[in-house]
């Protein structure tokens, strides 16, 4: 029986990753923000996998989604910086949510988890962009390096609000989705 659950989990993570990849392709920029920041809903399948199976399953969905994106779409800079940034953002968003949900096992825990995830993702991405991601981009695109003042400005006016809006949007969609799918999710988890 244990074996059976594992194979099912394995296959389900595969299909959820396929959905995540498709949702990732349906991305769009937000008004008023830089166009390289694209919002998509591919964190939703990862979140679902994280709360239905285990946090590791959610991380696997994030990883496979970005690997597929890199294999199929490639990366303009040659090295998958965008995919890596997306992976780190996704993981820092879903892990707190999954952790709090597993602790309380109700919608309230999930709401707090998603709110915490939004905060952690926003902080993580602001710090990582300042020290790692933005410098890496300017290096590989051979663009003039941003001064720390410029980088700070870009983070405060672009990356910070972007991740917050992304987190809040996904939280709203996921809460509505969870409300609809709650009986089904509980039934699947009980098996």
């Amino acid at each position, binding site marked *: 029986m244990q074996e059976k659950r594992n194979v099912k989990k394995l296959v*389900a993570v595969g299909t959820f990753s*396929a959905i995540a990849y498709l949702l990732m*392709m349906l991305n769009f920029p937000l008004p008023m923000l830089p166009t390289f920041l694209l919002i998509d809903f591919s964190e939703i399948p990862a979140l679902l996998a994280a709360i239905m199976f285990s946090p590791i399953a959610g991380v696997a969905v994030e990883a496979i989604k970005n*690997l597929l994106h890199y294999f*199929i779409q490639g990366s303009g800079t040659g*090295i998958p910086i965008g995919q890596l940034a997306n992976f780190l953002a996704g993981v820092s968003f879903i892990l707190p949510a999954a952790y709090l949900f597993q602790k309380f096992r109700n919608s309230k825990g999930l709401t707090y988890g998603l709110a915490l995830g939004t905060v952690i993702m926003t902080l993580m991405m602001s710090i990582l962009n300042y020290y790692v991601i933005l410098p890496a981009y300017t290096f590989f695109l051979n663009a003039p390096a941003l001064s720390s003042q410029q980088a700070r400005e870009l983070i405060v006016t672009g990356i910070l609000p972007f991740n917050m809006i992304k987190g809040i949007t996904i939280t709203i969609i996921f809460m509505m989705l969870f409300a609809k799918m709650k009986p089904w999710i509980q039934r699947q988890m009980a098996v």
Partner: protein
Amino acid sequence: MINSMIIGKYVPSDSIIHRMDPRAKLLLVFIYVFIVFLANNSVTYIVLTMFTLVLLFLSRIPIAFILRGLKPILWIVLVTFLLHMFMTKEGDLLYQWGRLAIYEGGIKQGIFISLRFLLFIMITTLLTLTTTPIEVTDGVESLLAPLKKLHVPVHELALMMSISLRFIPTLLEETEKIMKAQAARGVDFSGGSFSERVKAIVSLLVPLFINSFKRAEELATAMEARGYRGGEGRTKFRQLTWKPLDTFCLIAVFVLAMILFVLRS
């Protein structure tokens, strides 16, 4: 938009590139990504472009397929080109119009960086056009096999990846079907207020998740019935065979790297 993207669109043929071992092709692309950065003057870029064009020619893929793969990134290339053209202030001044000045170095830099983009996208497109996603996954699994010693679940990851590759077209079709079904019930996917949009997305996602989970259950049962028991001791239906051609191609890439290294300024 979706149809213009090449989603694992393998073009069957019997060219040299098609017959190469996927591991050799993956290594080739991997090394190529680093080699691209070696090119920094006209000669090296010409050598690199020639090498890439020869590979494209050998693959016998109709040029239209390659161009279709390049289409989605064309505007990025254009923006990069313009950015470098106007931002680089080196060499002779060629043209001045108010505050916009174009220098010789700017045009050169613009062409180089855009070319780097195009070459890289071409080589990855070539990989996906001549290699089935299954072959790519088998290749990755085989190349990463040493990591099993560090308890990295390489087999499981490769299996999950091949499953999701297999399901991307199926789920895409299903998404379109669900969208039509929901549109017939009055859901508007193209506009509306924020809350209407969210509701529309939820009405699409719920059936999509439940259907894909059902498919996963069926597939898991089918795998169990056929005796799937993890990667340990599993024999393969598709065997990868390393041929002299593969060794030759890898040597060619190393030679290319050395040529670029000598010719770069």
